[in-house]
């Protein structure tokens, strides 16, 4: 589901010497458009949702994101932190379906630019031809060196066919296509639900393991008609 290309995103973006906030922003923007960092970021944020979406629907999602455009309404530097308001990452997957990942705020510490704290994360992800998923989470910390996103707040995922997932937290290893949480998980789908107290998703959703007090409830479709 992530780009299957052999080139894995390289470790750390080149360290940018100290600059004033504004031209750093300009540098970040231009860097964002052209340099390979963008490719890392481009893969990173959508991958968060891809991995989660995979968790949710247990379908692997093979196309990889195509072009990307980072847009931020206003940005400011305060107390050594670059604050971007409403950063939005939009693009199209290779089979031309739109995705968008946005946040109310992205806060990046100028001294350590690999860490981006995202607040008010919201993403819309195409899953397959007919279905898409929306994902929202209060906040998460994205580490570009480790290529991980640590969402330490509740995550809600809803798909266009009405299925829903609620996770207490999620540590996402984006390059590795892994996601784990040791907080309760609840998934509701058309005719049933799955609950457990821990979850791990491996190989981009190929293997999903619910752990600790797994409870599955299946209401066979016939039952619905019977009860009317």
């Amino acid at each position, binding site marked *: 589901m992530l780009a299957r290309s052999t080139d894995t995103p390289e470790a750390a973006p080149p360290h940018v010497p100290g600059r004033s906030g504004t031209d750093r922003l300009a540098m970040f923007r231009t860097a964002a458009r052209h340099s390979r960092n963008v490719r890392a970021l481009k893969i990173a944020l959508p991958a968060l949702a891809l991995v989660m979406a995979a968790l949710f*629907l247990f379908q692997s999602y093979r196309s990889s994101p195509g072009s990307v455009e980072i847009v931020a309404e206003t940005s400011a530097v305060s107390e050594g932190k670059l604050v971007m308001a409403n950063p939005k990452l939009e693009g199209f997957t290779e089979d031309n379906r739109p995705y968008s990942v946005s946040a109310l705020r992205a806060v990046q510490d100028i001294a350590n630019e690999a860490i981006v704290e995202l607040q008010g994360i919201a993403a819309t992800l195409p899953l397959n031809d007919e279905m898409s998923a929306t994902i929202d989470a209060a906040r998460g910390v994205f580490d570009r060196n480790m290529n991980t996103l640590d969402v330490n707040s509740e995550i809600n995922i809803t798909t266009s066919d009405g299925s829903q997932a609620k996770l207490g937290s999620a540590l996402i290893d984006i390059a590795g296509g892994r996601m784990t949480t040791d907080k309760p998980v609840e998934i509701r789908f*058309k005719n049933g639900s799955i609950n457990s107290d821990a979850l791990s998703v491996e190989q981009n*959703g190929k*293997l999903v393991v619910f752990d600790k007090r797994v409870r599955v*409830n*299946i209401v066979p479709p*016939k039952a619905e008609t019977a009860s009317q």
Partner: protein
Amino acid sequence: QESATGRLQGLSISSGLPIQIESDRLEVVDGESKAVFVGNVNVTQGPTMLKAGKMTVYYASGSTGSPATGSANIDRLEVEGKVYIKSDTQVATGDRGTFDMTSEVLTLSGSEVVLSEGKNVLVGCKLTVNMKSGRAQVDGCKSETNKSGRVMMSIQPGSQNR
């Protein structure tokens, strides 16, 4: 190989009722369209209850949906590790069991498969139950000690005219 047959009304899975499954762990392997419940597996549907150490649910390959969304249709179940099946009147125990959803045939096998209803007990090495007809058959064990492969059956007097 001697076998005993009988009517087995209790032990049937009415497909309309909701199913609850509990276990320590659930592994869903997307590529192989199967879901494996591991550890203290407990399945209840209406009056019928099944306990086992492990239960593997095989989905019809190429079925739409996926194991976890429950929308994929189930091909068969395999259970192992101290299998215990109880319906409102009968209890069956064995080491391994399979349940084929299409033919609705349940088989339970092991070194000692016991099917009991109240004090009536049938002991053999294999229990085959056709869920649709409720017809059950227990086959004896072919082994050195029990050459004849006889089924051990004990019927409590007076239980027939219940």
